[in-house]
């Protein structure tokens, strides 16, 4: 992966002038490259990584394993796309193994997620079965630990 992308993946808010200095590029070059990545759809968005547990929200997240019948011609893509378009679905992955699609679904509360699964998800043509797991606590998301890490324990001056 290009170094610019690595920096942005770690910190999407990195100051572009600082990034330019780190990479030995001009500010214009950095901004042009970013614009290109956005245009090509390589960069798909910029989001804050929230520790939602700290917000005391009542929302729940479920991880749902879905078995589906692949379609002739489209394979899994069409059904995956149809499922992904529900705003409740936060992430969709095609998996190897005992099931086909893995969904991360967010709802106002347990009942809302249950309703989504029973009324929307399972009734879609091609969905054979679902298995729903509720998330209890988040320790790490997108490579970020949710607990603040320890203080710098190094001596302030050392040889």
């Amino acid at each position, binding site marked *: 992966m290009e*170094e610019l992308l*690595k*920096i942005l993946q770690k910190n999407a808010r990195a100051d572009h002038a*600082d990034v330019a*200095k*780190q*990479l*030995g590029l001009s500010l214009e070059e950095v901004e042009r490259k970013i614009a290109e990545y956005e245009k090509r759809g390589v960069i798909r968005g910029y989001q804050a990584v929230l520790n939602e547990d700290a917000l005391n929200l009542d929302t729940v997240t479920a991880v749902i394993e879905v078995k589906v019948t692949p379609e002739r011609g489209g394979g899994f893509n069409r059904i995956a796309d149809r499922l992904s378009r529900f705003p409740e679905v936060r992430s969709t992955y095609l998996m190897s193994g005992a099931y086909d699609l893995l969904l991360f679904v967010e709802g106002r509360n347990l009942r809302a997620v249950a309703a989504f699964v029973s009324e929307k998800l399972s009734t879609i043509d091609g969905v054979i079965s679902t298995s729903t797991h509720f998330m209890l606590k988040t320790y790490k998301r997108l490579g970020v630990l949710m607990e603040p890490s320890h203080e*710098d324990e*190094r*001596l*302030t*001056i*050392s*040889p």
Partner: protein
Amino acid sequence: MKTNGSPSLRDRLALPVRDIPRSGIRDFFDIVSTMRDVISLGIGEPDFDTPWHVRESTVFAIERGATHYTSNLGYLELRQALTGYVHKKFGVGYNPVTEVLVTVGVSEALDLALRAILNPGDEVLYHEPCYVSYRPVILFAHGVPRAIETSAADGFRLTRAMLEAQVTERTKVLLLNFPNNPTGGVMGRKDLEEIAAFARERDLLVITDEIYAELTYDNAHVSIASLPEMRDRTLFLHGFSKAWAMTGYRLGYACGPAEWIDAMMKIHQYTMLCASSLAQKAAIEALARPDADIGTMVDEYRRRRNFLVASFKELDLDCSRPAGAFYAFPNIARFGLTAKDFALKLLEEERVAVVPGTAFGACGEGFVRCAYATNLDQIKEAMRRLQRFLKRRG
């Protein structure tokens, strides 16, 4: 304690110890540690955490009961892993049974190396600015330190001409440290070949401290031990502190001719017995997959180096482009302050800690060492403060 006419205790101290001044870094640390909100560019160790798989394996080692003495030389499994790594990374082959000694950091290895080889009056050539311990450990070993001054104009490299000007009949050892602390200077293959030829002609032994070998940013590192006919006159020192961010583990090693290693082992076995068993277990794990850990850190250091050098340029501060380690060594002479006063004032006025170049030898006057083993936000804020500081001084 002074009693009826007997000399004061100070007078009874061993002379090589008594006459060595306290480390300049130590004094500076005492001042800094009383202050708050200091951004420190004075830290000579990585800010990265020790890789988790290494830390986790240390816990496992405790659980498994690896809490006893090891072989004086170190676990054979570790020595085998070390010779494998050194062969692959540096292109020099060593026998894990007779040519490797695991030590408590490179510091101990250097001490042993000198004590094993020096007779009183033997001279050691080394280059300054350099790591703070070189001169003292040469003196502790009853050797005669002969410093060679390197300069920013040469990228702090060592040249044959510099060696020729300092070598004498009593010169026995040449001590090298590239990539260099505090300058970030490196030596390429051509530079080293010149030095190696000189060592061969003069029949000098070479001790090469390559603790920063993995941290080079423009070109791959070359070890002098890998050059023709150098292996058998060279002691190669390396460790886990910098590349693996394992400073507190205190783990280093020496590779070299069996006679030299054996002599070092004699001192080591009677003074240290062995390096920590836990640190050795952790090192075995570190070597099992070095590339991923180090690659990420090196990329980050390189970006910070670029940032720092670009910032110095914006501030019109002269700085030889550092190509290794994690230090920049800018020239501050034009501000009319000694390195020490510059560092003190910068600390007092802007709460930024840098280390006066004189801590690394007299020729460090006019320079300060800025370590970029700290995150970019801190470096950026430090540069903002430095800019304010320099502006007041025209």
